């Protein structure tokens, strides 16, 4: 068992130091670099926060949609993509609503990790 602080906690703390102590004294041309660093650290932090559970849920959901038990998230998403490309989510198709709800749920989780600000006030 690992001791705390966890990787997520360390990243959060390191980010505070960079933002509060380093950013204000950096010359202008390097501020942008540090802002990118802070953004990258935030994404890593949020991925650690959510862990592997979302990918497992995604796999379970795709397995249910496709009616077969799939073990590999990459392969599951390839099969789902094929289903969508072949029109499985077109208007009038029985799975349209469930497919779209799945894409929404996965999309929301991807945004929660990559850019949660984009979810503020967004539709859906």
């Amino acid at each position: 068992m690992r001791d705390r602080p966890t990787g997520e906690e360390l990243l959060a703390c390191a980010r505070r130091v960079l933002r509060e102590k380093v950013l204000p004294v950096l010359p202008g041309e390097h501020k942008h670099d540090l802002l990118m660093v802070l953004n990258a650290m935030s994404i890593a932090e949020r991925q650690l926060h959510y862990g592997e559970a979302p990918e497992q849920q995604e796999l379970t959901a795709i397995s249910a949609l496709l009616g077969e038990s799939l073990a590999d998230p990459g392969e599951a998403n390839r099969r789902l993509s094929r289903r969508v490309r072949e029109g499985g989510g077109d208007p009038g198709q029985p799975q349209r609503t469930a497919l779209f709800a799945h894409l929404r749920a996965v999309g929301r989780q991807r945004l929660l990790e990559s850019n949660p600000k984009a979810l503020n006030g967004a539709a859906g």
Partner: protein
Amino acid sequence: MEQNLLRALERFIVTVARAESAAITSARILSGGAVQENWLIDVAIVGGAHAGRLECVLRCDSPTAGVAISHGRAHEFALLKTVFAAGVTVPEPLWLCEDSAVIGRPFFVMRRIAGTAAGHLLVKDGCYGGDRVQLAERLGRELARIHSVRPPQPALDFLPWYEDAPALHSIDLHRHFLDGHHTAHPALEWGLRWLERHAPARGEISLCHRDYRTGNYMVDESGLTGVLDWEFAGWSDPLEDLGWFCAKCWRFGKVDREAGGIGVREDFYRGYEGESGRPIDREAVRYWEVMAHMNWAIIAIQQGERHVSGEEDSLLLALTGHIVPELEWEILNMTESD
């Protein structure tokens, strides 16, 4: 740039400018990338049509760019010549040199323009770009002039030609890319299927900039000084450029200013319609805004992959890959109901 190259460049300018003499008074590198270099060059010219002080930019392949793209500068020069002749505000293309013997690589020289292109400054700060109504109108007019270039154009025969509807052509390219990529993107597949089901037929084909957006034109305090970044130009449906310019993903956070984050959509349209003499089908532009998000998502995956594959270690490229979820989300928003 070394002395012997500067002397060779001066001799080249004397010849092409039909001058008595040319003396380079300043040469400094503006930006050196993996693919191209831009040099700011000042030349004192005696005699000929360009007599006087000439401020220009020399664009060449970077020393490490390799052979594969060595035709790039000639193509870019041909595009600039064509659109300059069509009345588009671009840096005036002056001379092309395809002979590598002069400075070691092909290059071209264009007149220098002033200002800034930084998108986040343009949408924020009132001191760049001048009056917003005029700027939006002007950008509409400029785009209409680009679209006045119709095929066939022998000088542009390097641009890929295709017989499909432009939308279907793009969809095919995107699917082909996704099929070869290591990670599937079901949300993008959803968007591509929507784009396929709603694809407009092939209509009139124009020269399109295909990256016409805030960030790719230069302004000074009073307004537009030039349209930049022509490397994606190609034949397409003119509405593709209108959709790209207005798409929410290119408003730099100013989502309520629908014309590129800098102005009102109707001001932009008015400029376009006035110049082209043709009305814009408002509803049809929306299709191309969905396509804009799709194009940008595919490019963002490709940019991220340049980092992931080890081709280019870059935090900017790595973070660009993380824009994809936001673009997918917007695509879902726009395609949910039909």
